[in-house]
């Protein structure tokens, strides 16, 4: 097992109160697999990802939990150890890659600098490595000296991925890597991720709110709701037979997942107020199958039919 997150809780202190963005998440990722993390906007996906990289904003605090990556206890790393850990062990493709590149630096330079600073490359070798990486992700290697604004959105996304794999990390966290790209480019990027996984053996934690992306690329899928994992299992199974009512609602909310038509049903009710979560199961006010217990007890994540589900229905 490459990554193991256990009972992670990350809270934000805000003037309005405490936001429990991640509230008791456990998750594991195997070597060479692509795990999807899906959920509504605000469910805590990005917070989770940034916690793994120890990149949380200053008003966030890790209340409890454990993150172990390749045997390293991430939460106990010192500042200088962190510098070494980041990007070598785990790298990240940030949400909104458009802005993830520094506008005043050449794209190649932004990749070369990690090679020089963290892998001891000299300048010349670093730049030729950048060209290789460009080839690998499918960008014309002659464009390493362009500025970010001279790239198209898809190219930028590829460049960011090239940057993420530059140091051959064990895990790449891709936060919404394809959002805002058109469908053709989307699937090209996803193919690229799959190919990289196959060729380089890296694991990918793919974060998205778009289930079609998950369906296309992920081996396993975790569904997140209000800071908790509500269902985690192989992608096929989760899509075939969603066990949690939220997963089901989510899947039916998408007009098209694998191409075939399904009935389109938006999720009823409003997304939860993260400042003031409902008691018991956070989903119960919107759940068609909710009963007494749901508003009283928080359901545990339990193994059901070979996957993990947190729902009293499967109590």
């Amino acid at each position, binding site marked *: 097992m490459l990554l193991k997150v256990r009972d992670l809780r990350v809270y934000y202190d805000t003037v309005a109160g405490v936001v429990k963005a991640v509230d008791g998440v456990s998750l594991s990722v195997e070597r060479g697999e692509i795990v999807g993390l899906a959920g509504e906007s605000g469910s805590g996906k990005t917070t989770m990802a940034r916690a793994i*990289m120890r*990149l949380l904003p200053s008003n966030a605090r890790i209340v409890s939990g454990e993150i172990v990556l390749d045997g390293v206890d991430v939460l106990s790393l010192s500042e200088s150890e*962190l*510098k*070494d*850990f*980041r*990007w*070598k062990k785990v*790298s*990240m493709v*940030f949400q*909104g890659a458009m*802005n*993830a*590149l*520094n*506008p*005043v*630096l050449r794209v190649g330079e932004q990749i070369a*600098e*990690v090679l020089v*600073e*963290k892998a001891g490359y000299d300048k010349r070798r670093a730049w030729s490595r950048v060209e290789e990486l460009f080839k690998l992700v499918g960008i014309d290697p002659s464009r390493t000296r362009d*500025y970010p*604004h*001279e790239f198209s959105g898809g190219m930028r996304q590829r460049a960011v991925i090239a*940057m993420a794999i530059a140091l051959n990390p064990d895990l790449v966290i891709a936060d919404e890597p394809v959002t805002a790209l058109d469908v053709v480019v989307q699937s090209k990027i996803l193919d690229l991720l799959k190919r990289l996984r196959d060729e380089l053996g890296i694991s990918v934690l793919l974060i998205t709110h778009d289930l079609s992306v998950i369906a296309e690329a992920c081996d396993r899928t975790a569904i997140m709701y209000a800071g908790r994992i509500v269902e985690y299992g192989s992608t096929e199974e989760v899509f075939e037979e969603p066990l949690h009512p939220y997963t089901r609602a989510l899947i039916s909310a998408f007009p098209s997942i694998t191409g075939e038509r399904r009935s389109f049903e938006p999720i009823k009710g409003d997304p939860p107020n993260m400042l003031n979560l409902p008691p018991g199961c956070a989903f119960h006010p919107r759940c068609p199958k909710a009963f007494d217990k749901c508003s009283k007890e928080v359901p545990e994540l339990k193994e059901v039919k070979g996957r993990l589900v947190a729902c009293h229905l499967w109590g």
Partner: protein
Amino acid sequence: MGFKEYVARRLLSSLVTFFLIIVLNFFIFRIMPGDPTRTIARDARLLPEQRELLKKRFGLDRPLWDQFILYLVNLFRGDLGLSFQYRGTPVVEVILGRRMLNTFLLMGSSIAVALVIGMTLGTIAAWKRGSKADIAAIIFSLVTYSIPTFWMGMLLILVFGYYLDWIPISGTITTGVEYQTFWEYAADYLHHMVGPMVTLVISFIGYHFLLMRNSLLDVFTEDYMLTAIAKGLSTRTILFKHAMRNALLPMISVMALEVVYLFSGATATETVFTWQGLGLLIYESVVKQDYPVLQGIFIFMALAVLTANFVADVVYALVDPRIRYG
């Protein structure tokens, strides 16, 4: 639109602006209350014929329209008229002599030093925002920014000029000295510049510090900064390569504006140290209603500001690859 075309267009608009300023510059001083002849011929005892000759000497006997045409013609011949307070001295000679050089050297070096120190401190403070060092630096810059330079200068004079005898009290050179070499002269000049320069640097640092700090804090919220941190780069690279370059962009326009100081000088500091520069000249010209000199200085200032803005725009376009010209 190509870069060249962009530059050409900016150049043209600068020229048009300059011409407008030239015209305005003429009329503003005529609209202002007070008869200019009174400033050159204030003495009530002057005989009428003396008065007439004086007016003629300064071209004030002609109708306004003639004066304007003459002003334009002379301007393009590099003649800005005669100073009132330095009777008979051409304005160009008054402005472009030592005074211009004095102000350029003093302001140029003070701004440069303040810029470097202020920006470095600002970068560090932004990185460690909320720390004791940050708060101390903010207090320091607010205090130095608000201390009157006049008072500051007087203090320096008293302590370092009088009691400790480290710096000269006034002037740009020692009186009555024959210099053997240029270096001797330069050393004497620089020695005299220490006082005013320290005063100005102290008063400028705060501004640059706060500006840089704010600009950086803005930059820190950008996604690419998160990327840089996630990449595990060294603090130096993060700060000075990723953050500072972006934070410098707004500073370019600030620097372009500061070019005005090169012409306006710093009246208070120049006064305390008798550093005969353009700031002092402007002040004295206002007091003595020497409007030919004021007119001249304004033209130079306008020219400087326009040039600086033009250069800033071009530099901006060069430094920030995102800027599409047009």
